[in-house]
């Protein structure tokens, strides 16, 4: 279970792996914005072509990307099916009560599916090629301008690192507590609705108490080692913006121009 959350990163030395994490973060968000420019088949084709190119550059097997799609597959299918049945316009193929299948509905269903797949592939690419703490670090440096409006950037990035570090620990703990309570006769999956909901009380209380205790220990340890906030703290790994980062930005610029041209075609 823990592997799913933190073991997503696949070490490598491809061009995509070596990109500055800040560039990767910004560009993957930018890509998601561009997806919404697509409004016809040729523009979706261009996006898929671009996506395939980046996947080739990252040298990661396509199977890993489908793994990213899998947890969302029901969400996607649900959205697509509702889109198909509730849209109106175009030729009507089938009709029953408020439900109808029309040509517009089918096309927009397929578009929605493509959009989901593209977005998931791109965010999977980011987490597959960048270690979690690098993403946290990149986020910290990208959010820095927000310090002017008193957004606690260092605090947030420290919270993020603490959470990433302790999720596996607390996940283990939660499973242990569940087993401990089962051995005492708590039944999580039987009984009436109220009984099942009540069964979470002996799970949540120990879990939160344990989290609070760990937080106190961690604070003591940090204070003892002289933690004085993020201001002036140095880093072991310093991000460097290199020419291939600029190059990838240019590639995205070209993609944007292509999308705008195809859109009005």
């Amino acid at each position, binding site marked *: 279970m823990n592997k*799913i*959350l933190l073991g997503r990163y696949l070490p490598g030395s491809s061009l995509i792996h070596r990109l500055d994490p800040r560039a990767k*973060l910004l560009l993957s968000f930018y890509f998601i914005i561009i997806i919404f420019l697509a409004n016809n088949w040729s523009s979706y084709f261009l996006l898929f072509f671009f996506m395939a190119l980046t996947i080739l550059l990252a040298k990661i097997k396509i199977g890993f990307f489908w793994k*990213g799609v899998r*947890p*969302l597959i029901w*969400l*996607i299918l*649900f*959205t697509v099916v*509702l*889109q198909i049945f*509730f849209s109106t316009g175009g030729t009507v193929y089938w009709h029953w009560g408020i439900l109808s299948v029309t040509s517009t509905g089918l096309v927009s269903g397929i578009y929605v599916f493509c*959009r*989901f797949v593209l*977005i*998931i592939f791109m*965010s999977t690419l*980011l*987490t597959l090629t960048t270690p*979690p703490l690098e993403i946290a670090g990149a986020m910290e440096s990208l959010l820095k301008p927000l310090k002017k409006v008193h957004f606690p950037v260092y*605090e*947030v990035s*420290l*919270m*993020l*690192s*603490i*959470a990433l570090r*302790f*999720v596996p*620990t*607390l*996940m283990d703990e*939660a499973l242990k507590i*569940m087993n401990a309570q089962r051995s005492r006769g708590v039944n999580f*999956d039987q009984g009436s*609705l*109220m009984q*099942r*909901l009540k069964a*979470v*009380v002996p*799970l*949540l*209380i120990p*879990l*939160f*108490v344990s*989290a*609070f205790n*760990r937080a*106190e220990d*961690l*604070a*003591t340890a*940090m204070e003892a080692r002289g*933690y*004085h*906030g993020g201001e002036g703290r140095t880093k072991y790994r310093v991000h460097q913006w290199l020419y291939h980062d600029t190059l990838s930005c240019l590639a995205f610029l070209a993609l944007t121009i292509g999308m705008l041209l195809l859109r009005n075609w």
Partner: protein
Amino acid sequence: MNKNQIQRITINGMLLAVMIVCSQLTIPIPIVPITLQTFAVGLIASLLPVWDGLEVIIVYLLLGTLGFPVFANFSGGLAVFLGPTGGYLLSFLVYQLVTAGLLKKFGRQLPVLLAANCLGALLNLLIGSVWITWVLKISFIKAMLIGFVPFLLPGLLKIIVILPIVKRLAPLTLGRQAG
């Protein structure tokens, strides 16, 4: 930085981790299985001061947006916000603001806790349904039938279950933190 300040950050970080863990734990209930995610949101809103809780939720949503699989069933990424459940996630912020804000204003007696949580949860469901209207382009009434009505009873029961937990945990947080 003194220890109280550091501890405020470590508590927030740890509760963020708890929130992520809770999103992956499901209670099997026929038709609509519930994750412990909403329990965690309710507890955070009832236990933490307004801004601390808000920080936890913001960073949780941010992590999910970045593509970490922190949402229910190890899903993550911006795609989730495009789906029908995106509104519920975003309106956790409103839940936190409303519930923690009311608690700060009117104190933490049992009736206030109950009312504040109910209001927060109702707004959560309402915004979630409006989001569904927008994402699926269906009428508001239909969206309410899908996204609001079926969750009313489980939602209320959930709050009733949360209350004793808050009572038990409150001394742990509020004694240590000024808020």
